[in-house]
């Protein structure tokens, strides 16, 4: 446990807040790349996911692509993109790979959120005279929001993890301390930054978990006990973000 004390000392030493490698900057970089990529991925994946979920078309293709995407080694993808766009534009390559890696989770969250809605609810909304837009905005989006947030949550964690690796190609971020520590065998530094990275991921996960609870429509929580019995297996299977 001695190592952990040293790691904590490393985190709180005065050097962390000054010099060429200040913690604030690295944390800022990590967060900036995470949110930027998440935003870009969401801008692509949410409309696409809603289109698939609303029309029911293209689902198999989405499942296939998402399945294949999981097999992609994220660091390999970054390096591949770096070599394609050029080493001088490494940050762009990193962001593209973050976006590509986050899209499958968000896409799945968006369309499975719509798919999990009782067909009769949508049928009756249409029968009442809602336009397709109204069905989407008033019924499908609110009811599908918890699963969408779940998808964003997985996507964000994926990016945080991959951004750690991207320090290797000079992106900055918190991973840089690990890669600097490795050749020097400076274990306190590596451990200290690893703890920070883990804490960042856990914090982000917790924020999304809270948000996810928050967006469950009132009427759905109100009847949760009854609801669960009818749909529990399916809903859990769909909602199964690993961190819950």
């Amino acid at each position, binding site marked *: 446990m001695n190592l952990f004390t040293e790691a904590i000392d490393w985190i709180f030493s005065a050097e962390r807040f000054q010099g060429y490698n200040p913690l604030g900057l690295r944390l800022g970089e990590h967060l900036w790349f995470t949110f930027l990529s998440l935003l870009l991925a969401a801008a692509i994946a949410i409309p696409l996911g809603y289109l698939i979920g609303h029309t029911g078309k293209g689902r198999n293709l989405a499942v296939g692509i998402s399945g294949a995407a999981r097999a992609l080694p994220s660091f390999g993808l970054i390096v591949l993109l770096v070599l394609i766009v050029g080493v001088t534009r490494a940050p762009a390559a990193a962001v593209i790979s973050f976006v590509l890696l986050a899209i499958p989770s968000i896409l799945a969250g968006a369309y499975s959120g719509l798919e999990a809605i*009782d067909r*009769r*609810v949508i*049928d*009756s*909304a*249409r*029968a*009442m*005279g*809602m*336009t397709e837009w*109204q069905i989407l905005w*008033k*019924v499908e989006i*609110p*009811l599908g929001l918890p699963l969408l947030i779940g998808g964003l949550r997985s996507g964000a964690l994926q990016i945080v993890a991959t951004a750690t690796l991207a320090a290797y190609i000079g992106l900055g971020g918190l991973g840089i301390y690990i890669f600097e520590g490795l050749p020097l065998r400076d274990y306190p530094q590596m451990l200290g930054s690893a703890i920070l990275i883990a804490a960042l991921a856990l914090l982000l996960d917790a924020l999304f978990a809270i948000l996810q609870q928050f967006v469950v*429509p*009132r*009427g*759905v929580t*109100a*009847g*949760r006990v*009854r*609801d669960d019995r009818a749909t529990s297996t399916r809903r859990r299977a769909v909602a199964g973000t690993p961190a819950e």
Partner: protein
Amino acid sequence: MIEFRSVSKQFPDGTLAVDDFSLVMPSRKTTVLVGSSGSGKTTILRMINRMVDPTGGAVLIDDEDISGLEPVALRRRIGYVMQNGGLLPHFKVVDNIATVPVLTGVPRGAAREQALTLMDTVGLDRSLADRYPSQLSGGQQQRVGVARGLAANPNILLMDEPFGAVDPIVRAELQQETIRLQRELDKTVVFVTHDIDEAFLLGDQVVILEKGGRIAQVGSPTEILADPASEFVADFIGADRGKRALSIRRTERGAILVDSEGRAAGVLVDGGPTA
């Protein structure tokens, strides 16, 4: 008045759900479509508000061909009640009922006020207004569904097996309620069910359907019971068996009616209702 003129519906997968169906559903009467699954009864119902478009023939409402009407606008002036109400789980009861008026631009306050009145009409306590559908019993949900169907004050009310999912006691209660409502509100009601007893109870005009929407017989309950048009109809309504095949048995104390099993089903009285 709703009129079907040789209407057919073939689904993209090739099944012919409805084949050459013609019928007039008179205004301010209840028409019940009854048949087993696959008889096309729900498809026929859903052609009235263009949830399903026919592949042949025409559907007319008050002599106007509805294929020329905008589906969304058409649906907003036709009430629709389905099994389990199909209520929006994230809307409170009052907002569920007010959905259509709000869609058509009625201010929310006025729409809610009207929704509360409708809750009285369908026999729901106003204290339930702020509940969510999942907090209601099945029977209460169904009443909300009916209130919602009535919210835009439509002339036509479509009811798709609305009481299929509630227990027999609640169903009987809702059926009586439907009869009362119809007396008060005087709508053109089209009701779909697979339950012949429900059809005879509610229908002014009962349409018995065979596979593919073929009409086996149309008429009032009395006409159908008195003179089943075919073996199929007789069998479907159970005219030759069970509790509907009543016969008179004279006993020392007077005449009683017995069913086909010989169980006492009622007594013979003079001057029953004339109908």
